[in-house]
């Protein structure tokens, strides 16, 4: 390999990392406080919902499909969990029981859109683009019906405590406590470390990454994306596998919606409307091909970080968020062009 090819290959494989570093350098030098603990935690906190959606999208895109419903399944889950928890409290349950029940029921209901997507795609051979587009519309419509077009805000305040809580609270020089701030302490002296929702998200993302990278299920997911006929001939039950992929996607989107409900103490039909694009963009920035067969969860998370840092950085600089959409579009085109012109650089070995 010539030196020049080596250099191009290096850039081809790592441009996303370099881009994130550039972003961080730019914003930390222009937007004050960006690198403080608080700034980092805000970016991570903001990223939780998108990170779960991008993880969901990674599974689907690796098989060569696409799931356009994740954003609205997320909104649907936020509405269902908000409505349920409020309703259960009204029915006389304690807030804690109501929330736990509401979350469990929502997780179960949240499997349905994925099941429909999966059956349409795998059994009835509907193109993923159309199947998930239809399901997106249906879930959005149901969410709107449930909320009568407005937001579901009747959520017990415990949601706020969990959703905006931290794992560790430090009072410098005095002590440390877990999950809840020490009584009587608040304000500037209290240092919050590790937002609970960030930790929950990291756990699920890590689990998903493990499944895709290290297990037989993950290997078959790549095989289906690479050559579905080969997968069939190797004895893999591709129909069942694809159904499971869309169910996993829907499950993660539902989880994302529940986390949204806990963080914002609200259920909103369009909570994830901008994430339909962002989740796909994050996966593509991560180097996955929309033709299937490539992509990893952690690289998609890199894509999520690029988008989140961009959005937060622009906010901190006081730039209008409209500009974010333009930037995201440009980054997407850039990522796809790199994939098209240098596939051999990115995908030579696994």
């Amino acid at each position, binding site marked *: 390999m010539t030196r020049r090819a080596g250099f191009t290959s290096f850039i081809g494989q790592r441009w996303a990392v370099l881009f994130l570093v550039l972003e961080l350098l730019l914003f930390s030098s222009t937007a004050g406080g960006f690198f403080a603990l608080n700034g980092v935690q805000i970016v991570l906190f903001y990223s939780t919902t998108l990170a779960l959606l991008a993880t969901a999208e990674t599974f689907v895109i690796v098989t060569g499909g696409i799931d356009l419903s994740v954003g609205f399944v997320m909104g649907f889950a936020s509405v269902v969990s908000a409505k349920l928890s409020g309703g259960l409290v009204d029915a006389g349950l304690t807030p804690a029981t109501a929330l736990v029940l509401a979350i469990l029921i929502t997780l179960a209901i949240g499997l349905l859109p994925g099941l429909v997507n999966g059956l349409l795609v795998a059994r009835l051979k509907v193109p993923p683009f159309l199947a998930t587009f239809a399901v997106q519309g249906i879930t959005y419509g149901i969410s709107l019906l449930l909320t009568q077009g407005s937001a579901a805000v009747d959520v017990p305040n415990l949601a706020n405590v969990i959703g905006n809580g931290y794992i560790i609270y430090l009072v410098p020089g005095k002590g440390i406590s877990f999950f809840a701030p020490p009584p009587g302490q608040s304000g500037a002296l209290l240092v919050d470390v590790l937002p609970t929702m960030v930790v929950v998200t990291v756990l699920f993302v890590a689990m998903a990454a493990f499944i895709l990278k290290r297990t037989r299920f993950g290997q078959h997911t790549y095989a289906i994306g690479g050559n579905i006929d080969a997968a*069939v001939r190797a004895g893999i039950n591709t129909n069942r596998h694809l159904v499971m992929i869309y169910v996993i996607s829907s499950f993660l989107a539902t989880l994302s919606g529940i986390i949204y409900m806990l963080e914002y103490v609200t259920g909103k039909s369009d909570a994830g409307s901008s994430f339909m694009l962002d989740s796909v963009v994050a996966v593509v920035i991560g180097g996955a091909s929309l033709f299937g067969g490539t992509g990893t969860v952690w690289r998609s998370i890199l894509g999520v970080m690029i988008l989140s840092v961009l959005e937060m950085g622009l906010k901190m600089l006081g730039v209008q968020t409209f500009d974010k959409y333009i930037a995201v579009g440009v980054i997407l085109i850039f990522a796809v062009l790199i994939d098209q012109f240098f596939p051999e650089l990115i995908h030579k070995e*696994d």
Partner: protein
Amino acid sequence: MGYLLEVKNITKRFGGLVAVNNVSLGVNTGEVVGLLGDNGAGKSTLIKVISGVYPADEGSILFQGKEVHISSPMDALAMGIETIYQDLALAENLNTPSNIFLGREKMKKVLGFLSVLDHEYMQQESRKILEKLDILIPSLRNRIRALSGGQRQAVAISRSIYWDAKFLIMDEPTAALGVAEQKKVIDTINRLKSHGIGIVVISHQMHDVFQVADRLVIMRRGEKVAERVTRETNADEVVSLIVGAETVAQRGP
């Protein structure tokens, strides 16, 4: 000893069309049978019946002397009947060991309960089988996409042999390969013969078939029209059998 694989009086219809009409053939261990015929002669349908893609309407299949029922490709695979398809059935985004072990991955336990892919084992085993068949793949970590057509074919063959195939069906094994690579595939087929594998080769490349096949079976319009020992025939005769003697006669001098 009887045939390794024998099909008797196989008939396969698609609606009113008789794709394969009452065809019988047998293959011994360590023998290569060339299956020849024009497009639409029924070769592909016949091998798809053997490999479990289509159920036969009539007739029976005997494998290792016993009558078997092959109702799916998985049945065929489980018996040791493997098909090397024209489009190779490899996942191009995965590397050689992943393809050899596709669907039958070797797992290992970590932390006592998590079952994860044992890449190291799969890589070692892949290296062994490639060496046994004298096949050279530049780097096992390379995705299949980075390999040449001949190398891909070799991976597909290694895969079937690793999983103890006793009978191979090869559909156009030398099509779309360069001359040097065609020769390598033929070498590989000859090596498989010496390992006692029974092989059916479908090919349009008359030259290649004559190089590897011990016997030739010629089909036309769904029927078996002739069977020849390769040494006792020649390309001219075979071509006239493929296109039909009448046709040759009509065109004659």
